[in-house]
C-alpha cells in the first residue's frame, strides 16, 4: 500500500494541472466564441504560414 503515498499526490497534481489549464483558457477568452472557433478550422487562410 506504500505506493499510495506516490499515487495520491500524483493524482492530485494532475488534477491541479488540469484546473490550471482551465483557468488559463478562461483568462485568455477561449470561451468567447466557441461556435466561431470550431468553424475557423475549416478556413484555409493561414494554412501555409502563421498569421504575421
Amino acid at each position, binding site marked *: 500500500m506504500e505506493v499510495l503515498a506516490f499515487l495520491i499526490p500524483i493524482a492530485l497534481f494532475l*488534477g491541479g494541472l488540469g*484546473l490550471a489549464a482551465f483557468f488559463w483558457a478562461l483568462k485568455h477568452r477561449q470561451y468567447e466564441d466557441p461556435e466561431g472557433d470550431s*468553424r475557423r478550422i475549416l478556413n484555409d*487562410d493561414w494554412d501555409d504560414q502563421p498569421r504575421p
Partner: protein
Amino acid sequence: MPKGARLLLSLPTIHCAGCIGAVERALSQAQGVRSARVNLTLKRVSVDAEPEVTAAALIERLRRAGYEAHELDPGVLSMTETDRQGRDLLMRVGVAGFAMMNIMILSVAVWAGASDATRDMFHLISALIAIPTVAFAGQPFFRSALGALRAGRLNMDGPIALALVLTVAISLYETLKSGEHAYFEAVLMLTFFLLIGRYLDHRARALARSAAQELAALEVPRAIRLSDGAEQTVPVSQLSVGDLVLVRPGGRVPVDGVVTAGRSEVDRSLLTGETLPVVTTEGAQLSAGEVNLTGPLTVRVTAAGRDSSLHRMADLVAAAESARTRYTTLADRAARAYAPTIPLLSLGAFFVWMWISGGDLRLSVNVAIATLIITCPCALGLAVPAVVTAASGRLFRKGLLIKDGTALERLAEVDTVVFDKTGTLTMGAPVPDNLDAHPEQALGVALALAGASSHPLARALAEALQARGVRPAEISDLREAPGYGVQGTWQGRPVKLGRAGWVGATHAATTGAYLSLGEETRSFIFADALRPGAEEVVQALRAQGKAVWLISGDVTAAVEAMARRLGIENWQAGALPEEKAARIAALQDQGHRVLMVGDGLNDTVALSAAHVSISPASALDAARAASDMVLLGRDIAPIADAVRMARVSTRRIRQNFWQSGLYNAVFVPVALLGLCTPLWAALAMSLSSVSVSLNALRLR
C-alpha cells in the same frame, strides 16, 4: 500609433466558416481597417480601424459582399462584453468539477472495498479537498439563501445551502469518528450540477439583457444641425427646441418640428401605417420617426428628446406594460411547491428514526442527511435552463433574439397571431412594379439616369433594373436637380427622370418616378414589396391551427389586397393605434392568447398589450423595446418556427420536471428507509441530471 476607432457591427445572416472568412477578408481589405474579428456565437464583427473609417462605409462594403449588417453602439455594448459574472460562475463550475473528479477517484476505492485505516485516510483527503471547494464554489448559493432569509423568504437556495453545509459537517464528523459513510463526493456533485444549471440560467439572462442592449445600440441616433450655415453631425440628445435640423432624402426625421425650407414627400408608414407618401412643404408639421423621401428639408425643432411624439408613445407603452400582469414561469411554480418539502422531509425522517431507533442520534442524523442529499433539486435546477439555452440557441441561429426570459413560455400558449402590414409583412420600402410595361431602350435610359442619384426611389429603380440585366444607355451631361430629379442628354435629346411636374407627366395615384424621353413620357409605379417568407409564415401558422389576423392603419384597398394575397380571412384596415390595442384586448377577453407582430410606432401599444410580441430589426426602437423577441434578418419565416419551438421546449420542460420527480419518487423511499449509501446518492444524482440534460438537447 494614433488611437483608432473601434466599430461593432451586427451580422444577422452569417452562419458558417465561409461567412467568417468572407466578412473578415472584405473588411480587412477596406481602406484604414487594421483588423476585423468575427464572433459567430454573437453574430457580430468587431473592427479596429483608423479614426476616419465610418460604419456606413463598412456596411456598404459588406452589403456588396452579400451580407446584411447593422451598426451597434460599442459604448452601450461594452458592459455585456466583459461578462464578469459569467466568467466567475464558469470558474466555480471548473473548480467544483475538478475537485469532484479527484474525490471520485478516492470514493470509488472506498466503494470497491477499502476499509479501516485506508478508508479513513481516503475520507480525510476527500474532506481536505471538499471543504475549501464547497466554501469557494458554493458561494452563489450561500449568498442567495442568506439574502432570501434576510428578506424573510425561503427560496430554492435555502435548502441547497443547508444541505451543503450540513452534509459537509456530518461527513467530517463521521470521518473523524472513522465512520463508514461520508458524502463528500455527493456534496461536490450537487454543487457541480447546480452550478451548471446556474451558469446556463445566467447565460440565457445575459443574452436576453445583451439583446436588449444590442437593440438600444442598433439605432445610433444622429442628426445634422445647421448652425450659421455650417452642417454639424450631433447626437439627437444634444438637440434643443429652436435648433435648425437638415433632413436629407432617405433620412429619418429625428425630432418633432416645422419645415422652414424645402419641398419633399414624407413617408409616415412607421407612424400611421399609410404606404402613400405625403407631400410636405414649408410650414408643414413633421413628427419624429417619419422618413423624408425626395428633397432635403430644413426643420425647426419644436420638441426634442423626452417631449417628442416618439417618447410620448413610449410613455403610453410603459403604461400598457405595467398593466400586463406579471407572468409566473413554470420554474417559479415548481420551486414554490418544492422548496419547503426538502427540509420538512429530512426533518421528518430524523424524528421518525429517533423514535424507531430509540434515540440513536448518529443514525438518525445520517438518514436525515441522506434524505436531504437525495431530495436536493439537482435535476430540477437543470430542467429549465438546459431547455431554454438549447431553444434560444437554435432560435438565435435562425435569426431571432429573445429579449425576455419568459417569452418562450408565453409564446407556447399563443393561439392567435396578429400581423401589422406595412414594414412587417411588407418590407416598407418601395420597389418598381411595372417594369414589363416599358421597352428595353427606355429601361436603359432610366437605369443610366437613376444610377446618378442617391434618392431612394432612384436607387430602388436602379437596383431592380440591374437585377433584370438591363444595360445602361450612354448619356452625357448627367446632372441632378436636387428635390426634382436627374437630367441628361441621350442621342441628342434631353431626358429627365424625376417628379411628375418637373418631367412633364401626369401624376399617377401611387408612388411613382417619371421618365421623359424628349416628347414621350413614361411612369414607373412603385409598390411595397412583400417581405421574404411572408407567405410561408402565414401558411405555416394556419397549418399549426393558429388564427391569423391582419390589422393595419393603411387604406382598405391595400389591406384587402394583401389579406387576399396571403389568404388571411380576418383583417381590419384604417386602424388607429388605440384601435389595434383594443382589438387585441377584445381577442384576449374572449380567452385567446395573442402574438402581435409589428414594427411601427402605431403598433407599440398593441405590441405591449399582447400576450407576447415580435418585431423586425428594421422597426423603430420604440417598437423593438416594446416587444419580447426581435427578428434580426429580413426573412419573417422564423416566426412560425419560433412558435413551434416554443411549444416543443415547454413540453420538454414539463417532461424534465416529471423525470426528476420520478427519480425522487424512486430514491426518496430508499433514503427514508435508511438504505441509501453514498454510492446510491451519487448514482441517483448523476443519472437524473444527465438524463434531464440529454432530454433538453433533443430539442429540434
